[in-house]
Every structure is written in C-alpha cells, then in structure tokens.
C-alpha cells in the first residue's frame, strides 16, 4: 500500500487518536507541571540534620535566653528559651530576626577593612588581620613614644561591668590614656541618683513581677524597656494579676504609647514635667499622711526639709498648671500608690537605655522612699554587683602614668560635673571647639555615636576632625563608615561573651553567649583583638594582658561566681527566678570546672531573688540613711571652689533653684520656652525598631506601620488639633526645625498625641547599612540640641523646642 493522500490522512488521524490512548500525553502534562514548579531563582534550602543550640541573646543588654535551630552548620531560626529565667519562651522582634544580622553580607563588615573612599562613603578594602592589628598597635605605640597617650580615646557602648568593657578600659589605661568614654545611658542616671540619695551605686532594679501598683514615669515598658523579654513577661504576669483585680499599671506619658494604651490608667503629663508630678504626688502622700512613717523616721534623713519644700511648693493646684494633669488624677495616683501593698514608681523613658534627667529620677525615687519599698517585694531592689572576680591591676609605665593623670577631655568628675563618669557630648564639644582635634586615635566599640547621639550633625563634624578612627563594629554602621580602619567583632552568635546581669533584672544572673555557628565571615572577637593589639604595642602594654585569649579572661572572672558560693547553672522554669526566697539555693555543680562547663552549654549562672535587708546597711550615705536632703550635693556646692572666681556654684552645676530645694529632688522648671519655637519635639522609641547600636533586623521593618514609615519618609505624630492650626493633613510633608537643625518628615495625625507636641521615632534615618535600613526616614537626634541636664551634664533627649511648617 503506497503512501497515498488518503492513507496519509488515515494514518495521521489514527496516530493522533492512538497517541491519546498511551500514557504519553499525560506523562508529558505531568512533566510540564513539575517543570513549571522549579524556578532556578527560587532558593532551595538544603536539608540536613536538625540541631538546637542554647545561647543568650547579645543584641541588647536585656540578655534573653535563646535557642537556635540549626540544619547542619546553618542557623535557621532563633527561638526563645523556656529554660532561661529572664524570658520564659518569648523574645523581642529584634532578637527574633537576629539571623539576618548574622548572615546579611551587606549589613556586616566581612573582614578587617581599610577605608579607601571618603569618610562616610562606606568604601573599604579588605586587609589582613595582621596588617590591621599592626596598624592600630603602631598608632598607639607612636603615641606612647611621643608621650601623647591621652590622645588615645575609647568610646565604649558595652554594658557596664561586662568583661569586654573592662578590657577596653584596661587597654586605654594601659596605653596611658584617661579618656575611656562610655555612651550615655540610663544606668548613669540611676547610678548618680542612687549614689547621691543612698550612697549605693550597685545595680538597681524594679521588682515589677511582684508589684501590685506600677507608677511608671514615661517608662516604655512595652516599647522595649529594660530587657524586653523579661519586661514583656512581667507585663503578662501583671495582666494575669490584674484580671484578678490585683495589679494596676499607671503610665505617665504625654503620648498614647503602647504602654500607655495597654496600662490600666494613662496620665498625660506635659513632657519634661515628670519631676513636678512626682513631687505633687509626694505632696498629697505627705499631706494625707499616707507615707511609711516607720521607714521614713528610721531610714531616711532630711525628710522635714523635704516635707516643707513639697508642701510649700508642690501643691496640686500648682502641679495641675505645670503638668496639665487633673487634681483628681494626682490624688488618685497618690492614693493608689500609697495604699498599695507593693507599689513601685519607676523611671527611665522610652526603652530605658538613654539617660534621663537626674532630678526627675530623684523625685521619682523620693516617692519610693516615702513608701519605703526598697528591697521589699515589688519595690526597688538595690543589690551588690555580681561577684565576678576582678582582674589583676594594670602595671603602667612612666608614659602611661603621666597620661592617665592628664585631665579627661570630657571633664567628667571635675568640679563642673562632679558626679558624672563620662560625658561624650563634652568630648564632641571639645573636639569641635579646638583648631586641631585633641583626639588623635579613637577606638569605637559596640557604639554608633554618629547616629545615636543628640545633635548628630555636630557629632559627625567632630568625627571628621579626628585623624584616625578605628571601629570594632561587626556592622556597617554610620560610625564605622567614618572609621579609617575596621576590625570587625564577631556577631553575638559567633562568640563567647558574658552578659553581666541583664538590664534591670532584680536577681543576680550571669549570661554567657556561645558560638552558635562558626564565624560566617573573617571576623574576630573584640576581646581577642584587644589582647592582640596590646601584645603588638609594646611589652609594657602587653604585660597588662597576660592572657592567651578572651575566653580565658571570661573564665577567670567567672571563677568569682564560684568562689562566692551557691548559685545555680540550670533553670527548670517551674519556679520563676523572681520569686522571693528566704534561703540561699544551690549550688547545682560540683566544681568550678563543672560549673564553667555547664555555663558554657546552658549559658547561665543565677541566684534566686534574695536581696539584702533594708537594715543591713545598704544606705552608704554620710548619714547611712536614704537622704531626701542630699548632703553630698551640699558638699559639692559649698565646699568646692567655683570654676570662675565669684561664680555661682549652683549655676555652674546647671541648677536654677535656690535655697534648700537645690539639694533635694525638685522640678527645675521649663526654661526652654521660646517664642520662635513654640512646640516641643519628643522622640519616642519602639520595641520593633532598634534605636541603639545594633541595627534592626530587616524582618522588623515588616512590623512597622505605614503611618510610621512610608517609602523613604518617616512620620512625626501630631495631634489633629495642632495639625489643623498649621493646616496640616494626614500624610503631608512638614519641616520640623529646632535650634540645631531642620528636618523633613510626614505628618501622622493621632489623638494619641498631646496638643503642641511633635513625636518622632528614634531609629529611622540611617545613612549606612544596606537597602533594608538605609535612607528610611529621618533621625530625630539631628534635631536635639546639645543641652545639658542640670547636675549630671548628660544630654537632654526628651524635650526639644521646635517649630513646624508645611513642607
């Protein structure tokens, strides 16, 4: 049969029909289905063995327990730990996204770098570790050779008492410089206030979990205050109690923050008037005889003077005028606070990391003293520092001895700032007001002053003047972009480091991070780098650092915990660590070796809450009592010479009131009033946006609302009434101008804002990092002029006079 036209057609039709009886078309369909599901650009995470590694979060001083889920060598998820006392299971959004901060190549310095572009550009060239260390060491060595060691300055953002901060201070001193400068923090305010009123500078904490009445003076408990993991859990505990009618939280804040919204009572006091309000409450408590008379008569001094002042000058009528809070509300707070079993008045605005006003804090602390709730359940807890071993003293040579004795550039501890330990803003001032920067080499550790300090413009000007800056930051932050040399630290997931008593914790806890993954990039633990640098400077400097590596330093210090006796290294979670105990617990380890091994795997050593009794001499003031009338301050005013002949000592300290009130907690009044700048700018912090040194993980930007950040614009919150005065509508661009600077933002109208106040979130406006973080919004620090808090000399963050206009 030949191939005729007819046959061909038949064959074709038959073929097509027959084909459909075979599985071929269906198989092909399926293959196409599978093929359409494999795109080469969709990442396929490799499978592997699942592991879980316990550690501690090191992103903030809150020190939450974390466990990291791993697939082979890759860390894939961070979760909260239930076997860690701080945070039963939960962690904060930043901690949750920590892996992005570990792996994102554009967020991190991937190795030691030398700057090649202009300062601020972020153009670096990778060099070897040997070269990097040699460069720093030579720089320090040359300062030592020329006896100019004071020109070496370290800026340290690590929490106080951590081993790393000791090492940094040690390196600075051993090289011969007194200029070890810490970033300003709330700890400074606490420390100064407590030293003045109680003579005690041990860590202070609020026993929130056991409290039944929390009077919060602007503390953003839900904005990331203290250790967010712990505080949020404490919040749940308080809520649980509240549902049974047992706990009240009163939030005093001018903005309807999360804390204000979620608390039982929101009291909107004008920004900057907290001291007046606290003293107004004190007035009612004293007037109505609601204070703890036994405590006041047995353990305090200067009460009569305080009483006279408070009754004379802080009548509710006056307070209503100052704060805008109603008389009934003041009375209700006084009653609530004084009649509660375990009340506590807490201080520290926003996240509780930026310093506050010293007199404000002391006014709040006075309330606690009136109620006598010091080292009592639910009150404030003053305890001894962790019993860590001290490191052997350094052995400075002649050069260093000379250098250490030169005056600090920041004038901290001088007659002008007698109680301050370090004042970085003064350092910035000094640099900007000299022709040539007195600072030759600046070492920056775990800090980002170019972004986080007020008046950022001035800070950057100062940084530009410094001849040589070395950054140890693992992150590509603004300050490291100003650096000439970067010696990147590991991230907290790659190194062993201690977290010495997480922020604000009432019981003693030592946390230890561990390398969860092998270093992802060519970085080195800053502790090791410090030792390496010291060894490379010269033998004399090296002799102060006789250790093999940083971990051995940690181990030496931890030995102190063992020597103190007791303590636990395992936490079961059955009984919360904040439950008050009468008897000491532990130990649950055999030897120091055993203890250290267990700490290294589980990351903790702790003691359950058992503070020293009130009568065990915790007040170490001249009177051995809690001082309402601060003798040490009186001494500093009356006995110290004035800076300028014939000057007013009080004025020099920044105190404006006269008479006895100057030596007691008092309200300084509003001196910022300026016709040209009729509004107040109050920065605010958010738990889901990092505003400190470590950046927010990109994940956190999912949680930011689009009336907080939209595209590259951040929003300033304004009351609709105020906005209508300026004809500003939701989403309009506005210019906010202060003495320091003018910035552009968009307006977000909210009834949660106090009329006349402009609220701007801290943490936006980065100019470094990568596309997730860079150029998003504006940094309110630019607006904040370098004010000085009376007496402490620290920056004033929380009220800035501004004006706004449509932009």
């Amino acid at each position, binding site marked *: 049969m030949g191939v005729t036209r007819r046959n061909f057609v038949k064959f074709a039709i038959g073929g097509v029909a027959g084909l459909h009886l075979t599985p071929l078309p269906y198989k092909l369909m399926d293959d196409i289905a599978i093929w359409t*599901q494999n*795109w080469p650009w*969709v*990442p*396929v*995470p490799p499978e592997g063995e699942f592991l879980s590694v316990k550690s501690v979060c090191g992103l903030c001083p809150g020190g939450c327990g974390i466990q990291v*889920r791993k*697939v082979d060598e*890759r*860390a*894939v*998820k*961070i*979760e*909260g730990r239930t076997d860690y006392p701080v945070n*039963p*299971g*939960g*962690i*904060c*959004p930043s901690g*949750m996204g920590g*892996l*992005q901060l*570990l*792996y994102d*190549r*554009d967020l991190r310095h991937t190795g030691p770098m030398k700057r090649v572009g202009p300062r601020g550009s972020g153009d670096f060239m990778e060099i070897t570790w040997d070269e990097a260390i040699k460069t720093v060491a030579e720089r320090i060595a040359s300062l030592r050779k020329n006896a100019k060691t004071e020109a070496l300055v370290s800026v340290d953002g690590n929490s106080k008492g951590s081993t790393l901060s000791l090492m940094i201070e040690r390196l600075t001193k051993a090289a011969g410089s007194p200029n070890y400068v810490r970033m300003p923090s709330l700890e400074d305010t606490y420390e100064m206030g407590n030293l003045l009123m109680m003579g005690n500078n041990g860590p202070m904490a609020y026993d929130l979990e056991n409290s039944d009445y929390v009077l919060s003076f602007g503390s953003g408990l839900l904005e*990331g205050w203290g250790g*967010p*993991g712990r505080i*949020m*859990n404490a*919040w*749940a505990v308080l*809520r649980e109690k509240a*549902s049974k009618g047992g706990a009240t939280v009163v939030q005093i804040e001018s903005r*309807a923050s*999360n804390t204000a*919204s*979620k608390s039982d009572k929101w009291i*909107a006091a004008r920004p900057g008037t907290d001291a007046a309000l606290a003293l107004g409450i004190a007035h009612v408590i004293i007037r109505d005889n609601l204070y703890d008379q036994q405590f006041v008569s047995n353990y305090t001094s200067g009460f009569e003077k305080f009483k006279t002042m408070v009754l004379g000058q802080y009548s509710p009528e006056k307070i209503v005028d100052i704060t805008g809070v109603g008389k009934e509300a003041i009375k209700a707070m006084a009653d609530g606070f004084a009649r509660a079993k375990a009340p506590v008045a807490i201080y520290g605005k926003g996240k509780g990391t930026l310093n506050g006003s010293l007199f404000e804090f002391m006014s709040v602390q006075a309330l606690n003293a009136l109620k006598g709730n010091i080292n009592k359940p639910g009150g404030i807890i003053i305890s001894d520092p962790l019993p860590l071993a001290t490191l052997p003293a350094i052995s400075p040579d002649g050069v260093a001895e000379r250098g250490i004795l030169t005056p600090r550039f920041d004038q901290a501890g001088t007659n002008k700032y007698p109680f301050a330990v370090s004042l970085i803003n003064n350092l910035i001032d000094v640099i900007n007001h000299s022709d040539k920067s007195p600072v030759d080499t600046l070492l920056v550790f775990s800090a980002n002053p170019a972004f986080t300090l007020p008046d950022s413009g001035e800070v950057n000007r100062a940084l530009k003047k410094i001849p040589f800056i070395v950054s140890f930051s693992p992150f590509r932050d603004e300050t490291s972009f100003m650096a000439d040399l970067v010696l990147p630290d590991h991230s907290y997931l790659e190194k062993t480091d201690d977290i010495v008593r997480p922020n604000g914790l009432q019981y003693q806890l030592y946390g230890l991070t561990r390398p969860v993954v092998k270093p*992802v990039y060519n970085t080195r633990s800053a502790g090791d780098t410090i030792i390496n640098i010291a060894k490379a400077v010269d033998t004399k400097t090296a002799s102060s650092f006789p250790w093999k590596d940083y971990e051995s330093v940690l181990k030496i210090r931890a030995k102190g915990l063992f020597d103190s006796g007791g303590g636990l290294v395992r936490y079961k979670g059955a009984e919360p660590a904040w439950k008050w105990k009468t008897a000491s617990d532990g130990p649950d380890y055999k030897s120091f070796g055993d203890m250290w091994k267990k700490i290294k795997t589980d990351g903790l050593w702790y003691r359950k809450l058992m503070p020293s009794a009130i009568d065990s001499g915790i007040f170490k003031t001249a009177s051995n009592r809690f001082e309402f009338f601060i003798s040490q301050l009186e001494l500093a005013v009356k006995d110290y010479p004035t800076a300028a002949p014939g000057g007013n000592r009080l004025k020099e300290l920044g105190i404006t009131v006269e008479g006895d009130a100057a030596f007691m907690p008092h309200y300084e009044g509003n001196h910022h009033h300026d016709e040209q700048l009729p509004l107040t700018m109050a920065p605010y912090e958010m*738990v*889901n946006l990092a505003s400190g040194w470590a950046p927010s993980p990109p*994940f*956190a930007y*999912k949680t*930011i*609302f*689009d009336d907080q950040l939209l595209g590259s614009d951040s929003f300033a919150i304004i*009351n609709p009434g105020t906005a209508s005065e300026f004809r500003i509508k939701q989403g309009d661009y506005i210019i906010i101008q202060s003495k320091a600077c003018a910035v552009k933002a968009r307006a977000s109208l*909210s*009834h*949660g*804002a*106090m*009329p006349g106040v402009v609220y701007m979130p801290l943490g936006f406006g980065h100019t470094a990092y990568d*596309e*997730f973080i860079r150029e998003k919004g504006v940094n309110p620090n630019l607006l904040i002029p370098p004010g000085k808090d009376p007496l402490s000399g620290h920056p004033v963050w929380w009220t800035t006079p501004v004006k706004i206009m449509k932009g």
Partner: protein
Amino acid sequence: MKKEHDQGKYKYGMVIDLDKCTGCGTCMVACAAENNVSVRPDESDKQRSISWMQVYKADNGKEFPEAETVYFPRPCMHCEQDGRGGHAPSCVSVCVATATTLDKNTGIVSQIYTRCIGCRYCQAACPYKARYFNWWDAYFPVDKGLERYLSPEVSPRMRGVIEKCSFCHHRLMRARTKAYADGRRKIKENEYITACAEACPAQAITFGDLNNPKHKVAQLIKSKNAFRILERLNTKPKVYYLSSRDWVRKIADNPVDEFSPISG
C-alpha cells in the same frame, strides 16, 4: 450543622489575648523567620508586602487624652465555612486549581504553592486579607547571604503564587514524627504550637486543639470575653480573641444594631 462536631478528630485553633498583646510584632517576625518569608527593600508598601501574621492597629476613636490603641494580630483564620453553610472556607471553595484545601482532620487550611496559578480569586474572597500574593520573586539576592537562614521545612515560594499562614503545619508534622518515634499515637498539648504563639513575649497567643476540652484554648474560648473577628459573616474562624474592653470587642465586627457590653 450537627455534623460539625463529627467532622474531624482535631480542630487546631488559636486564642489571642488582646489585653496581653502589646503590639510588639514579634509574632510577625517569628512567623516570617519560621516560614521563609523574604523581606523586600521597601516593606512599607503594605499592600504588597507579605506577612502571614499581620498586626492591625485600631483605636477607640476618642480624643486626647482618652485615645486608646488596640492591636489585632491576624493570622489566617482557618475558617471552617464560607459563610453560607458551605463546609469549606470562602478561599477554598473558590480556588480554581484545588491549590488550597481544608483538612477536615486538623482544621488547617493548606496552600500548595506549586499548584497555585496566581489568579488571586481566594484573595478577593477572603474578608480577613489573610492571603498574600508574591508580586515579586522572593528577595534573596545572590551573594547577599540571606538564603543561608532558610529553613528546609518550608518550601520557598516562587513569584506569582498566593501564600498564607499554615498554622505552621510543618511543626505539626514535626510533632507527629516525634510522637511516632516515641511510640505515641497522640501529640501532647504543647508539642505542636505555632511559631507566633511560641515567640510571643507577652504570652498573649495560645494554641491548641479546640476539640479537646483539656486544652487551654478550648477553655479560653468559653470566656465571656472571647470573640472572633467578623463573627457575623459566619465563616467560623478558628482564631479567637479575648478582650475585657468593650470597645475592642465592638470594633471586631460590624454591628448594625447597638452593641451590648458584657462587663459592667
């Protein structure tokens, strides 16, 4: 209706205590990290960014200083019905390619990414806006290194498909595998919880089997403060909320008539 309780052995659900919720967003981050949701350079484009767990913000509408804020964390509601008695949620009954189904045995509404053609009908049908479309390819630029934290338990999605909260279904699988390895047939109450419930620092989220009276969720939903969002639509969501504040319960639904407060 009477069949409703016989349908499945398990009915996993969630209770979110809005009095405890602080709006911190940890649930959102935990969810994104657990489920390989990528972050785009501009996450402020809320209409196109992906967040299976989304925290909504609402206020009581009053003026300063009476203004109050509440946060509604909103995962997929895993509805049981479409609102007119159909025994599949709105999104499931409309899906053209059977890419999403309601597992009658667990109550979980699944999403098969490799099956989805991206018609977005489910998105239009969902009143909770719980469904998200991948307008872009997942953002894991080459050399950025971010793909290293991806979990192999959840398959990353390609552009052009819908994704949504799965009640961390892979965690159920994990728990089942573990129970099986231990020779148990049942998983314990806290063995299977979602990443958001686990992460919540304020312990506002409780997760468990609504069918099991011993589970905390089953007890919590009996509270007089318990409610669901848009209850009137009758979609029978398995995510419940608790709030002692009347105005919060009131704005969770669209009441035509007067809202009657329950707490004095």
